[in-house]
């Protein structure tokens, strides 16, 4: 279990939509660190504007960070071009949210699955055909599906095709951006099971991006929670869900609709709107909505500090309250 991915201090900004004398910028990522081990599923959770998808695109080499580094298996991939970039791409593959939009409507399923084999010239034409059949079988589709077009498949089947296409080049890391949020619950369960199996049987690491904490809890070993371009809490699934420390993580957990008889919404878990990433709050970005806020929160950016060896949080206030109260979680 050595490091596979090491993201350090990544900053990404975009020009804000619209024109003006002084084009403002969207602060999508403002100094993000993330580490992944081989064969591990890392869940990345956040709401809109959190920057989770931008981070995924940086890892895929589709978005170049303004600052910071992304090291994959010992190789810096920021600024990589040509052959070296292609080699890294062979080993990092994407699965997208919208299974229909991520498949070329004119291509057969077989051709889509084969796309990376063709790109990297793997084996002979016959080998590739055989490999496509194996991959379809692996994701639970029949070989006949190779000749169909995406419009002839159900949403779940399309996402299976998307996963087969990602697996074709034999990657070490799959970056899955909201892979189940367009699917019905019963279909979602099938795809989540498939993602879990990839890790178990093939040892593929997965960076699993989702807005849904419930889904992330189910598939991940490690979880990072993002808010407005920063990671506010990161840790092993067990610790983070059993003892969330950051007030945002706690509110997010409170807000998840759980289908249980006693899950009634008694109070609003988190008041206020998510601020715009064009003009994010100073200091801790969560402070305007936070119930634990002190003066320092609007001045200084809180660093990620260890709670335990496997659990870090960017909230000194919650951390201090926690140590004062022993190990009991803070009530807010």
């Amino acid at each position, binding site marked *: 279990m050595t490091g596979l991915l090491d993201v350090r201090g990544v900053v990404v900004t975009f020009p804000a939509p619209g024109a003006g004398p002084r084009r403002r910028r969207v602060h999508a990522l403002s100094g993000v660190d993330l580490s992944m081990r081989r064969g591990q599923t890392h869940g990345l959770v956040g709401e809109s504007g959190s920057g989770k998808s931008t981070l995924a695109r940086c890892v895929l080499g*589709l978005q170049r960070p303004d600052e910071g580094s992304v090291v994959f298996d010992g190789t810096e991939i920021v600024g990589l071009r040509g052959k070296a970039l292609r080699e890294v791409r062979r080993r990092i593959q*994407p699965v*997208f*949210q919208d299974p229909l939009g*991520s498949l*070329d409507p004119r291509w057969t399923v077989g051709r*889509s699955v084969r796309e990376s084999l063709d*790109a*990297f010239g793997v084996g002979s034409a016959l080998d590739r055909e055989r490999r496509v059949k194996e991959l379809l079988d692996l994701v639970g589709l029949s070989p006949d599906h190779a000749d169909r077009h995406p419009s002839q498949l159900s949403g779940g089947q399309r996402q299976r095709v998307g996963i087969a*296409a990602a697996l074709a080049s034999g990657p070490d890391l799959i970056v899955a951006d909201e892979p189940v949020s367009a699917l019905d619950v019963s279909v979602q369960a099938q795809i989540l099971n498939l993602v879990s199996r990839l890790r178990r049987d093939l040892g593929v690491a997965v960076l699993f991006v989702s807005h849904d904490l419930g889904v992330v809890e189910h598939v991940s070993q490690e979880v990072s929670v993002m808010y407005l371009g920063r990671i506010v809490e990161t840790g092993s699934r067990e610790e983070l869900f059993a003892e969330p420390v950051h007030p945002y993580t706690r509110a997010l957990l409170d807000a998840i609709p759980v289908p249980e008889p006693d899950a009634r919404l008694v109070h609003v878990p988190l008041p206020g709107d998510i601020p715009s990433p064009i003009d994010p709050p100073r200091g801790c970005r969560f402070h305007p909505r936070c119930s634990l806020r002190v003066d320092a929160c609007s001045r200084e950016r809180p660093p990620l500090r260890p709670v335990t060896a496997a659990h870090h949080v960017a909230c000194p206030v919650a951390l201090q309250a926690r140590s004062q109260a022993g190990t009991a979680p803070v009530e807010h």
Partner: protein
Amino acid sequence: MTTTMTVTSGVRRARSAVGALPRSARAGAAILVVLAAVAVLAPLIAPHDPNAIDSARILAAPDLGHPFGSDALGRDVFSRTVFAFRTSLSIVFAAVAVASLVALPLGTLAGYFGGWVDQIISRPLDMLLVLPALLLAISLIAIVGPGSLVAALAIALIYLPILARVQRASALVVSQSGFVEGGRARGWSPLAVIRRHVVPNALGPLLVQAAILAGFAVQIEAALSFLGLGTQPPTPSLGLMLSDGRDVLTQAPWVEIFPGLAIAVVVLAFNLLGDGLRRHLDPQGVVS
């Protein structure tokens, strides 16, 4: 082996695509096939030499041997109309083909890359677009001199910015699809992704717009020739014939009516095809 498979499946898909076209598109295509056949086979179809002057038949009314009658020089209007199809359709086809072939890469690159690539490609085209079409054509002809080839180039120049814009818009939409990003992440270079994913998926609106514009091109060609800026006499073209017929409209209306009808039929056929293609390929209406 893979290539032949792709080709046959391509043919099969093309055939089924024609079958699935709306009736109007099929009617338009059928008329155009007939007209193209007339243009190609003009020497076989025309009963007389289109330029043969017959002083005995000046402004003669239509009869069995001369179904469209004769013009002020006694030339057979039917034969001239048949040959005029040849001239006008060639000019239109050349103009639209040149404009489309130039617009396709320019629009695709502008739409896919955006940013400064888009600026470099789109700004000069926008400047072409703001000039009035006929003024543009007349200026070009004033510089180069009149003729069929120049008329074709002038029309192409008018159409280039329109077609490039359409292609840019549809390439922009397709570029945002997951499969385009996926293609890059699967290891293909930007140009390969453009060739494999963007162009095939973005081509529909360009084809539609080209078909609709071809109809108008017949009119522009006629207008240029009518003004003496396009095809030069004695070569028959539909616009020139209209110009000739105008002088004798009251004495011999057939000299004017038949080339006029011919223009109407061509325009109608291209519009039927374009409209049908639009409904088939572009139901959301990227082409305005």
